């Protein structure tokens, strides 16, 4: 067992920590609230290799592991980055698994930074892909429908949806889609992409939870009431202690899930979903505790903690609520146990 990241991973984390400190301070996050998308941050991320790192070396990428991407996602979550880095990385990995010429062309454009590709997390309903991550800024979207995987180029007219958490999501009517794959490959690749999205988002939520707690802890140490820092009251201290414990658990589980993609592949699906469900609740617990102990200030738009609380609700909601996730995790788990028996 070794819970320390490798030296290379430490360097990777430091590089992205510095990038986000510079390109995603809270003023920048706030100025991108209307769209959930900061074009300058996105350019910088692409230049730094945040998308191409996800591709195999053969495809001109860095061949980063899912765990490498997870550590970047954690920094992304800490900084509440207004950029679809996870969606783009998941698309890279999905496309890399496909053989068709269409998929390869899409990947080349995506890696070159010419066409941003995103993945719809759910099949279309009534002919519309609903709440597509990065759907308001992507150039193409990959989606799954009735046993087939499609890609669709997106036109200019897409209404930006207003959500709790300021994300570039959109509803996209299906029209003029190209098939990328069908049959077992299509559904396996799609399920895998969903699981990877969950594993990476879990780690982003861990980063979010950690930073939210730092903000909260700092506040209750400084804020005084009744002649003492409010962090000395058990009613405050114990709520934060619970949240810190959940966040530590979420961090271990989410990293383990990303690690399992390569190192314990049979458990990956199950762990990715468990981590996503658990990290969702941990991030909401952490950001709520920190928000609530800010008193009235927590309710004010001016304080950063509300940015964290809103995203803790919004980001994971794009997939499904925790109970649905936990049920799907258990389904994967029971399947695995059955096969093992």
């Amino acid at each position, binding site marked *: 067992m070794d819970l320390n990241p490798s030296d290379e991973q430490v360097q990777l984390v430091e590089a992205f920590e510095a990038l986000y400190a510079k390109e995603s301070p809270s003023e920048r996050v706030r100025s991108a609230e209307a769209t959930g998308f900061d074009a300058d941050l996105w350019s910088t991320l692409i230049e730094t290799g945040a998308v191409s790192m996800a591709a195999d070396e053969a495809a001109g990428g860095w061949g980063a592991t899912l765990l490498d991407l997870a550590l970047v996602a954690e920094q992304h979550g800490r900084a509440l980055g207004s950029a679809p880095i996870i969606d783009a990385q998941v698309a890279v990995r999905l496309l890399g698994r496909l053989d068709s010429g269409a998929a390869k062309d899409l990947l080349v454009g995506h890696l070159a930074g010419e066409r941003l590709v995103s993945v719809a997390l759910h099949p279309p309903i009534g002919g519309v892909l609903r709440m597509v991550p990065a759907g308001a800024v992507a150039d193409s979207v990959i989606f799954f429908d009735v046993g087939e995987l499609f890609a669709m180029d997106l036109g200019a007219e897409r209404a930006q949806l207003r959500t709790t958490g300021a994300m570039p999501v959109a509803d996209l009517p299906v029209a003029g889609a190209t098939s990328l794959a069908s049959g077992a490959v299509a559904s396996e690749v799609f399920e895998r992409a969903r699981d990877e999205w969950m594993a990476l988002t879990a780690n982003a939520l861990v980063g979010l939870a950690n930073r939210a707690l730092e903000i909260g802890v700092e506040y209750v140490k400084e804020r005084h009431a009744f002649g003492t820092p409010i962090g000395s009251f058990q009613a405050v201290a114990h709520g934060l202690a619970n949240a810190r414990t959940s966040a530590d658990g979420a961090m271990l589980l989410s990293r383990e899930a990303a690690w399992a993609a390569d190192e314990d592949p049979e458990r990956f699906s199950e762990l990715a979903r468990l981590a996503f469900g658990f990290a969702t609740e941990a991030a909401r617990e952490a950001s709520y505790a920190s928000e609530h102990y800010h008193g009235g200030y927590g309710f004010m738009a001016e304080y950063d903690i509300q940015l964290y*609380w809103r995203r803790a609700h919004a980001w994971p*909601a794009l997939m499904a609520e925790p109970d649905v996730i936990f049920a799907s995790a258990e389904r994967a788990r029971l399947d695995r146990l059955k096969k093992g028996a």
Partner: protein
Amino acid sequence: MDFRLGESSEAFRAEAKAFLDEHFTEDVERMMHETGIHHSWDLHRALADQGLLAPSWPEEFGGQGKGHLEMIAFHEEFQRAGAPTYGQGTTAIVLGIILALGSDELKKMIIPPALRGEFIVSLGFTEPESGSDVAAAQTRAVRDGDEWVINGQKMFTTSAQDAKYVFMLTRTNPDAPKHRGLTTFLVPIDGGGVEVQPVQTISGERTNITFYSDVRIPDVMRIGEVDKGWDVMGLGLTLERSGAHDGHTIRLQRAMEAWATTPNEIDGTLPADDERTLAKLGRMAAEAEVTTLLARRSAWVADQGGRPGVEGSMAKLFSSEALLRQSRDFVNLMGPDGIRSFGDPTAPAKGEAEYALRFALGTTTYGGTSEIQRDIVARNGLGLPRAR
């Protein structure tokens, strides 16, 4: 035992409903959400015209002598409708304080025009460095002859942009123990030296920070004795926690039950056919009923001549924490659609659950945090020693 509020309460409720049907128009509602200002002059003046600004007051003051059980029916309807009430709510608290503790001169100056709907009053309790610990207020009031000079800053002076006065807690004796150097005043906002700075909140509601620089007011604006402001505040905080609490839950419940019993546009399924959804709706129904009963009990205790301190804290604590649970439950239950914002045309059930999620954040804080309410229940209700 009788769990009905009674005929006169129901008659008064019908009056409130009729008033709201006429005056709480879609325009008023839209304006409220667009500006974040939960005060409507149209509504306020209409209330005044019908003698409904202070129906519980004796007839000699332009009231109708309504009892607590009638008033709670009235307030329930306003809350359940989601009508803007902050302006009349804070004004009513301050008028109640002035009626009880103000000088005759002040009563004469303030009460009649206020009851005619000519102005509203904001509350100035909280400061940057004092929230739950209200008595730690540092805004200074210094006597200068027959005047007082006020310097300081107040947080969350909601409605101040529309108000004529702020009812304010100040420190008049910095050397006395914390609770013994406080004095309360009614400070005119337009008299010079007051700056109102808007503050946006997560729910979209607007509140304000107000700044006071050498604001000079005559001694007649003082309420209660010098350095005895904490006694005045005791009445104020109790009044702040009284009233109905079930409105937000009932409003959410109505929206969610309508959503659950309306076939899905695309596949025609009914959310209410799902056992989990039914269970969440049932849990909300139980909490809505308990919220209503706890608030009505407070009114009943007051009606019996008691002072519902612990009962009021329980009602406030339970209703706000329940709203938090309910809004989370339903935003979750709606899946990805749950986070489409209130105001976005694509939001299910008009985004009422999403709005409640953000709105509920405030309810567990203002009017005394849940922690303060638990302290009160523990100490005054259970007789536990003062929390350390």
